[in-house]
């Protein structure tokens, strides 16, 4: 008897040792998991795991309904539907970028996260079933120019991926896509890797291509029944291509808060795609939905804007560029089909103070305040019956906007392959006291607003940025050169005098 119990203990210990490093829900305790779940997860996922917590209403994508048994991001091959334990673990640990789901590794221990995995599996009854076989990675094809080129070809072939992700991968939809709960889903903008639910590491991309995203229209490209099926090698090429699409030059650099406008000699052309802009330095900023003033917006479709600026001795040009999956033109049949109803125009605005602040005080960053007015240059894309137009608005707070004469302001927009480019032009100096007068070399606060008309954005429902800076780089001045020349002569002179006086002293000795 004693021998048996000793033997059992050894086996038990062995199992524990073998189980621990690999990590399975079997190591987690659903009871502990429930306790953590009730404290940390119910706000969104609900007490019953149905994704109907109090926070759910204002979230898109909505929180996962665990009882549905459908998991979007998993590595179980396309013919299975139960995720690997590791998949659930990874979602908890790292979170889901681009959604409200944070990564929990900083406040939960590995064990606690495994406890959660064990508990979450109870909702769909997966605690009593085995997951299907995982995706086979066969042999990873390292990224190379050749592989990327092959991947691009496969991406575009018969509109395999470009059908939803667009020719340039910006997710510019030609279809209205819905998720399993009838919610609006958007094809991933593949040029923005920070919005990928998992990383843009080729292995993660390979997994998505192979499995698809259950509950959405993203299919599996490993399914032999699909007309668009790809071999593992081909999937690696596509994964390498998708990774190469990341627009690193236009990613947000949090250190950069200043738009530097260079001075040019020629007049600024009206075309937003003119070559003159290739040399202008792009600055990209995050945009957030307006949730400060009444009629708040919780479901934005875009998160960044890229700004460039140049100026001449008489005028300034500000070029705004942002990705928008939908061209929203009320009255246009295609626009109406894809966009949410009612369909509005796409719009964008630059916000400037009326007077350049001398101290720290600026106008309130959302439409100014009573003591500090702002100027808004607003462009709208037009409808089938009205052309694009600009307006100039003066405001001293939300809802106080007054239209000014916009005669001196030019705005022109071009929509191309999932991207808007809008160019504003105005003379540096105007005669109106309600307009900002530009000066070289000073820091001018600047902020941005944008509306996606297909996403129900109109009025106070829009995205906006906080204040950044615009500086018109001073034309080359001779002061630094002359100043340093003077310093050079001065120091040389002092040295000369010093040497001379010391040698005179020597002679006197």
């Amino acid at each position: 008897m004693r021998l048996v119990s000793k033997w059992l203990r050894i086996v038990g210990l062995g199992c524990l040792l073998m189980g621990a490093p690999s990590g399975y829900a079997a190591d987690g305790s659903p009871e502990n998991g429930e306790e953590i779940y009730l404290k940390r997860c119910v706000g969104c996922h609900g007490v019953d795991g149905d994704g109907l917590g109090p926070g759910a209403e204002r979230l898109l994508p909505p929180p996962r309904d665990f009882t549905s048994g459908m998991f979007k991001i998993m590595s179980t091959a396309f013919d299975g539907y139960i995720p690997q334990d590791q998949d659930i673990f990874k979602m908890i640990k790292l979170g889901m970028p681009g959604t409200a789901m944070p990564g929990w590794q900083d406040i939960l221990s590995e064990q606690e996260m495994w406890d959660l995995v064990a508990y979450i599996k109870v909702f769909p009854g997966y605690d009593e079933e085995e997951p299907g076989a995982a995706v086979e990675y066969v042999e990873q094809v390292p990224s190379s120019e050749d592989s990327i080129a092959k991947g691009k070809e496969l991406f575009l072939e018969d509109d395999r991926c470009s059908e939803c992700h667009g020719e340039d991968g910006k997710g510019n939809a030609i279809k209205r896509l819905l998720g399993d709960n009838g919610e609006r889903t958007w094809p991933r903008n593949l040029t923005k890797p920070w919005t990928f639910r998992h990383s843009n590491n080729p292995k993660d991309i390979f997994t998505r291509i192979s499995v698809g995203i259950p509950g959405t229209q993203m299919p599996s490209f490993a399914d032999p029944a699909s007309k668009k099926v790809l071999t593992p090698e081909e999937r690696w090429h596509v994964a390498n291509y998708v990774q190469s699409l990341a627009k690193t030059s236009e990613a947000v650099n949090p250190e950069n808060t200043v738009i530097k406008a260079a001075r040019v000699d020629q007049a600024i052309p009206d075309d937003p795609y003119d070559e003159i802009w290739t040399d202008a330095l792009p600055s990209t900023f995050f945009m957030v939905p307006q949730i400060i003033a009444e009629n708040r917006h919780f479901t934005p479709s875009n998160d960044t804007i890229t700004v460039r600026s140049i100026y001449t001795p008489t005028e300034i040009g500000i070029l705004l560029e942002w990705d928008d999956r939908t061209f929203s033109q009320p009255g246009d049949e295609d626009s109406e089909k894809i966009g949410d109803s009612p369909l509005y125009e796409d719009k964008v605005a630059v916000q400037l103070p009326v007077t350049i602040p001398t101290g720290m005080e600026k106008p309130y960053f959302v439409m100014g305040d009573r003591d500090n007015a702002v100027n808004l240059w607003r462009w709208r894309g037009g409808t089938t019956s009205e052309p694009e137009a600009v307006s100039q608005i003066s405001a001293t707070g939300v809802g106080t906007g007054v239209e000014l004469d916009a005669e001196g302001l030019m705005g022109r927009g071009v929509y191309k392959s999932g991207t808007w480019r809008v160019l504003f032009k105005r003379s540096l100096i105007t005669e109106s006291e309600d307009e900002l007068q530009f000066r070289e070399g000073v820091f001018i606060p600047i902020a941005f607003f944008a509306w996606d008309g297909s996403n129900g954005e109109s009025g106070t429902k829009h995205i906006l940025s906080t204040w950044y800076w615009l500086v018109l780089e001073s034309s080359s001045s001779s002061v630094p050169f002359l100043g340093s020349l003077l310093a050079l002569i001065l120091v040389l002179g002092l040295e000369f005098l010093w040497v001379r006086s010391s040698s005179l002293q020597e002679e006197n000795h």
Partner: protein
Amino acid sequence: MQKIPKLLQVVLIVVGVYFGFVLLFDFILGQVIPSSLLNMYMFFIVAGVLAVYTATEDGTRELVAPIKSLVEDPSKKKTRNIVFAVTPVAVALFVYLQLVPSLEAPLELRSIHPAPPSTVKIYGKRFDLRTLVNPYRKLEEEDPEEFRAMVEAGASIYIQNCHFCHGDKLDGQGPYAAGLNPVPLNFQDVGTIAQLQESFLFWRIATGGPGLPDEAAPWISSMPVWQEFLTEEEIWQVILYLYDYTGRRPRSWEE
């Protein structure tokens, strides 16, 4: 120390302190030290070090001896010529860099926890922040069940309104935090709600960014004016939740 010439000692101390500041701020504290602040610190360091080294006449002589000999000692002529050629160029370069217009964003210093006013008008009523207490705090002892319900109500309000910026984990890292400047407050941090009274939180939540005094730069704060969206009761409930979730205690008058 004996073997190192005094002049070199001075140079080593100044350079060492300079990089010490950079190391402390930029790497250990993770907060880049503003150049204006660093310049000010270095001015006092240099002045202090020179004062110490020139306190006695011997000290002064020893300090300037290498410089003097450089000019007066004929055997060091070659070194002197090099030093005398490099110095003006270095000075000219420094002057040039100082005069070229800087495109570094202006430094904005703001007070994160400004002093609250003694009284404030919220919901059309006047509140005395010095005596104001959370009316539901006492339930914690009197009626724990009712208290739990209040905390849970606060949790719902939080997830519907606050997590977008302050984060699901109350760590100031909500999905929109990266687009805001100043960044949303991190309630998990010991330096935030644990240092404050509940009345301070009530004032900050109810009047939001625009309710801040000027030293706290109300024009850039993204904090909404919550009295426009939440009831008085809801604000007190969400305050209960902030302390409950983070496990912190509000500061009170007794302490």
